[in-house]
């Protein structure tokens, strides 16, 4: 589905000014700092706020166009919205909340969604009796059951504490893979981006700075400003070549006969996974050591080398078809005489990739549930 958001909107000091054309399928993360205008932008899409001027087209439906005087009311846009706070109706039970947006009351469908979100045992309760995480799951179910053409999620984890976030994230992850509705997910968390998004839109001060596949944007220089100086990372998307059950390790195929060993990934061989590799976990050597505890010694070409502060230096590397970034001291960089175009060897400690740094990318179609797709 295509999504066009060409709008201008003054909000106090902030001017939202976007000209965005997206092929929206799966999860598109709207990423940026607080106050960048992310929430305001999706409010414009949902019709909760009006742009000063512009045009918003969802698929083949024009929902807003100043030139043609079109401004569809929120209830006519068929856009599901999961807000930062759950916004459940306090005077309806969970079941009543879930069915509020259903055009045809369908209890079977309600049970499918309730099961997916693990809220079947809560159906007769009132929202006040639920935990924050449960409330948010009900809010997600409620939005899905209105059978929207698109789902907007505004930092659904932001109002929750750490344990609740950990509890809810897997549900959203699963949902993103099973639901055949494009999702726009507002976030300022790199972890959520890594685990949920297929593509991303990077926003700053009301403007779109970059958009594209998550790995492409993450690994580009535009993203450096959003990564902490001492924890710059790249994203690798690669297929699992083989597992070593004996050592509980998995081997990723980086192309050009290069491989990367990581701690065991519980996904079948050949499946596509996404890895975050931290620059601080990569060291560089001129000649490969003969005997080393480090499992991954990969030939790389230096693309660039830039100092990040007085003592550190960030070296961008080409490894097969993939990009890597290594954070080394300026002292080491000078002693090794690192220059663009040179061939070196990158050492990546196999154990340094934690479970939080990996996610399993499943194809959407295989699991698509007929109850979870939009019907017009």
């Amino acid at each position, binding site marked *: 589905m295509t999504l066009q958001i060409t709008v201008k909107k003054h909000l106090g000091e902030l001017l939202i000014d976007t000209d965005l054309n997206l092929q929206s399928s799966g999860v598109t993360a709207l990423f940026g700092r607080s106050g960048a205008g992310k929430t305001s932008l999706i409010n414009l899409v*949902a*019709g*909760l706020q009006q742009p000063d001027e512009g045009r918003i087209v969802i698929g083949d439906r024009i929902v807003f166009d100043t030139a043609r005087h079109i401004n569809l*009311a*929120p*209830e006519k*846009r*068929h*856009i*599901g*919205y999961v*807000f930062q*706070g759950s*916004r459940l*109706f*306090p*005077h309806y039970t969970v079941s009543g909340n879930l069915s*509020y*947006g259903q*055009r045809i009351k369908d209890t079977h469908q309600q049970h499918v969604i309730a099961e997916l979100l693990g809220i079947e045992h809560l159906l007769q309760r*009132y*929202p*006040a*009796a639920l935990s924050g995480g449960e409330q948010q799951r009900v809010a997600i179910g*409620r*939005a899905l059951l*209105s059978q929207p053409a698109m789902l907007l999620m505004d930092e659904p984890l932001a109002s929750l504490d750490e344990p609740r976030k950990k509890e809810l994230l897997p549900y959203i992850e699963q949902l993103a893979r099973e639901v055949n509705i494009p999702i726009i997910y507002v976030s300022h968390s790199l972890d959520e981006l890594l685990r949920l998004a297929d593509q991303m839109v990077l926003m700053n001060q009301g403007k779109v700075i970059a958009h594209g596949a998550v790995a492409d944007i993450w690994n580009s220089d535009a993203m450096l400003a959003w990564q902490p100086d001492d924890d710059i990372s790249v994203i690798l998307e690669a297929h699992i070549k083989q597992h070593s059950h004996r050592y509980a390790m998995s081997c990723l195929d980086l192309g050009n006969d290069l491989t990367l060993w990581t701690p065991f990934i519980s996904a079948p061989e050949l499946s596509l996974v996404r890895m975050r590799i931290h620059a601080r976990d990569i060291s560089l050597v001129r000649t490969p050591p003969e005997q080393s505890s480090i499992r991954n010694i990969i030939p790389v070409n230096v693309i660039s080398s830039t100092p990040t502060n007085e003592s550190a230096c960030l070296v961008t590397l080409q490894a097969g078809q993939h990009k890597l970034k290594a954070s080394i001291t300026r002292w080491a960089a000078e002693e090794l005489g690192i220059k663009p175009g040179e061939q070196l060897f990158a050492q990546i400690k196999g154990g340094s990739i934690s479970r939080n740094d990996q996610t399993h990318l499943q194809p959407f179609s295989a699991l698509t549930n007929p109850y979870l797709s939009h019907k017009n």
Partner: protein
Amino acid sequence: MLSEYEISALLLSLKVSVCAVLFSLPLAIIMAWLLARRQFPGKQLLDSLIHLPLVLPPVVIGYLLLISMGRQGAIGSRLYEWFGLSFSFSWQGAALAAGIVAFPLMVRAIRLSLESVDSKLEQAARTLGASPLKVFITITLPLTIPGLLAGTILAFARSLGEFGATITFVSNIPDETRTLPLAMFSFIETPGAEAEAARLCLISIVVALAALLISERLTRMAQKRLAL
């Protein structure tokens, strides 16, 4: 226990007050909604007009009703001509006077309650496909129930106590317009009827207390139900 005279005055009072409250409730909801949620020219004027009965002497309201709604009045004569409806010197007139005097109290309570309904919930309902009317009926109004209850009881109590506008507009006719306060006034005027006046005074206190207790109970039930 109660004399025939007292029962008649009590029942008449209840009838007048219940009618006054029931008929003004829909209009009060509309006015409260306009004042709480809408911006329009003349809003300040409407607000003042609605509040006028609160600050005007009741006898002035009675007089205005007499010249406008009486059988010879500008509005009253037409109502009689077209619908055969007459407010003068009837219990319907007493209900009209009570409703007007109690109206600002009702609007105020409902308006406050409407203003405290979280508009974020209404937005959420809109994104779930609900039209503004459906949102009002299924979200806004149920969440306003504590205010509706408070406003209704307050208006009911004010109607029960209405005296000045009533006696001016519809006079003091036994079994037709002689409500509890008017009956009490008649006894106070009559020498040697102190005991009867005291009995009516007690009845008034009991009815008012009962209304307050019921309102308290209902409000608490509504709040519990709404999980507020």
